[in-house]
């Protein structure tokens, strides 16, 4: 626990509250005296006062109990012992009073302690009940939303007038994900205030401090000055005042060593104030809650991953069926024609060549799937060697243009650019980028490839004149299984760019979509340079 930070942190002491039980000890003593005088005329000097001492100790504690014992002794001596109205200090009387004081003191002590134990047991029971309820409730669901709702509702109203959960997102923002109020009509206000006045992690406010430091923040008494200090503007202050927080207890949510956010307990004007004794219960609850939230998050992420994989399997199956249809259909067409009558050798050769092309396409798709599996299991190993990227790209493009004369590609690679690269893998990246660019190019518009040095890196850009990539897709095109539009089919399984990015990353490089101002899309690969040493001989040998 931490002594409260910030403007809200003052421990309130209540001197009047401590003296009250002592004053109240007078009442049972007075009652005992009245009963003694009314019921008995002689003797029974002390009997009536033991219950009075016990009562004072039960309600007020050991101290007020002893005070009642002393008061009783004085009253008996003054009022009941002859001579009345004077202190009797005869040895016999002193022994009587002393004996009473010793016995009554013991009664006060025992009764006070018994009451303490009973109170502690009751509180412990309540805590156990709450914790047991919490673990049962939170273990009951893996659904993220359900878990948040259960966590936030659990402490209300027993431990808080309202309770909120704020979680840290990947961008360092603190987002309110759940809120519960003893008065449900107030709940929208709890959400509204968080969305209108969003919190960041570096703020000097309770939730941010708790998440940042990982330590519980206790603010037993919030004053209007604290609200003014927390408010960003007049309207914010108005909402804070309307909510009427009086006491705050904010516990960080930590699971697997990671800070997820904070669970905030608040009490309004009518409620008790939080004290140090509340901290451990709140922390136990938060511990259970953090675990449940973490589990629900993991489960949700797992389900999203499984769904993405299922979608991908459908697409992959679909994608494989196209060349399978062509291979089978091509062979069937050739057979059908052969059975109908004599067929020229040239037509047979053309038919077989087409079947061969389609079976290669099938092989490439299967290779892609295998690459994906290798990447996922970290088994894709590079065999890098020093190479001139400029000559390499120029050669690869030239070979592609020879294979597909109808798909024009231009290369600008004026000077050698040395990198340490795996030529087979880089060829694969280039083929993916070129295939992608060609796919989206309008007929006849050449794809432009450039290799240069820039910013201390080797830079390869592949630029097409197609429709471009909308801003919201630019990051996502490199995601696994990603396709801009599944039903608007441009071919491919949505893993070419993902595999390319991973291969480039294994080379220590990056790949990004850049946005040419005059239309189209440009995919830019940056690789570390192998060194400043130029290698004109290699360039000459290859070029």
């Amino acid at each position: 626990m931490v002594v409260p930070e910030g403007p809200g942190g003052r421990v309130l002491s209540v001197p009047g509250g401590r003296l009250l039980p002592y004053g109240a000890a007078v009442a049972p003593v007075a009652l005992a005296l009245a009963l003694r005088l009314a019921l008995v005329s002689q003797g029974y000097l002390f009997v009536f006062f033991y219950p009075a001492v016990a009562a004072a100790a039960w309600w007020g504690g050991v101290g007020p109990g002893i005070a009642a014992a002393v008061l009783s002794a004085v009253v008996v001596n003054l009022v009941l012992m002859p001579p009345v109205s004077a202190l009797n200090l005869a040895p016999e009387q002193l022994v009587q009073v002393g004996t009473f004081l010793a016995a009554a003191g013991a009664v006060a002590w025992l009764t006070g302690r018994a009451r303490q134990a009973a109170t502690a047991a009751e509180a412990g029971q309540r805590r156990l009940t709450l914790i047991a309820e919490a673990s049962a409730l939170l273990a009951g669901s893996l659904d993220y939303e359900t878990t948040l709702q259960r966590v936030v509702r659990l402490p209300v109203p027993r431990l808080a007038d309202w309770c909120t959960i704020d979680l840290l997102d990947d961008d360092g923002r603190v987002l309110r994900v759940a809120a519960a109020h003893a008065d449900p009509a107030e709940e929208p206000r709890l959400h509204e205030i968080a969305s209108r006045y969003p919190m960041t992690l570096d703020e000097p406010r309770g939730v941010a401090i708790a998440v940042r430091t990982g330590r519980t923040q206790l603010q037993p008494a919030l004053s209007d000055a604290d609200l003014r200090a927390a408010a960003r503007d007049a309207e914010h202050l108005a909402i804070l005042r309307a909510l009427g927080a009086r006491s705050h207890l904010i516990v960080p949510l930590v699971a697997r060593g990671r800070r997820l956010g904070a669970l905030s307990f608040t009490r309004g004007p009518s409620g008790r104030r939080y004290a140090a004794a509340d901290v451990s219960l709140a922390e136990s609850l938060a511990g259970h809650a953090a675990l449940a939230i973490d589990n629900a998050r993991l489960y949700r992420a797992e389900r999203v991953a499984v769904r993405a994989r299922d979608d991908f399997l459908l697409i992959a199956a679909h994608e494989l069926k196209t060349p399978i249809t062509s291979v089978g259909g091509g062979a069937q067409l050739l057979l059908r024609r052969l059975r109908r009558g004599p067929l020229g050798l040239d037509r047979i050769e053309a038919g077989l060549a087409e079947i061969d092309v389609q079976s290669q396409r099938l092989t490439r798709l299967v290779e892609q799937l295998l690459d994906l599996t290798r990447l996922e299991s970290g088994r894709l190993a590079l065999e890098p060697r020093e190479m001139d990227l400029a000559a390499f790209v120029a050669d690869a493009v030239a070979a592609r243009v020879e294979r597909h004369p109808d798909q024009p590609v231009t290369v600008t690679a004026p000077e050698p650019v040395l990198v340490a690269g795996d030529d087979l893998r880089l060829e694969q990246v280039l083929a993916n980028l070129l295939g992608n660019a060609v796919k989206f190019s309008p007929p006849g518009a050449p794809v432009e490839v450039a290799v240069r040095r820039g910013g201390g890196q080797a830079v390869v850009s592949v630029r097409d004149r197609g429709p471009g990539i909308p801003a919201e897709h630019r990051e996502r095109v490199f995601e696994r299984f990603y396709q801009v539009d599944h039903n608007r089919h441009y071919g491919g399984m949505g893993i070419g760019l993902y595999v390319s990015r991973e291969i480039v990353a294994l080379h220590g490089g990056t790949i990004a979509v850049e946005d040419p101002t005059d239309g189209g899309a440009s995919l830019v690969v940056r690789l570390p340079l192998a060194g400043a040493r130029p290698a004109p001989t290699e360039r000459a040998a290859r070029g």
Partner: protein
Amino acid sequence: VADAGPVLVVEDDEAIAAIVAGVLEDEGYAVAVARNGAEALDRIAVRRPRLILLDMRMPVMNGWEFAGAYRARTAAPAPIVVMTAGDAARKASEVGADAYLRKPFAIDQVVAVVARHAGAP
């Protein structure tokens, strides 16, 4: 059936389009090929087909969009046979097709379904 029109093959995969067109031409049908829905609408504007073999996932204008646009502008649409992988029956019913060919299909199936819905060549 003097001028029944061609069988229109709408398919973005060139190899599949060539095979389907080849087998139908061997059977004696006139065949036209379009690489996507938009091209198909252009061809239909010139000449009414007797049957449309329709791939679903295509660039520019996919099978769903084509079927909607085609029905909207044609009083007496030609029968449509969907050619697709996966849940072909569902996709066929989504676009109100008369029949479907599930990829990978055998070319005998192509001949049979065209004969059934478009008649003899």
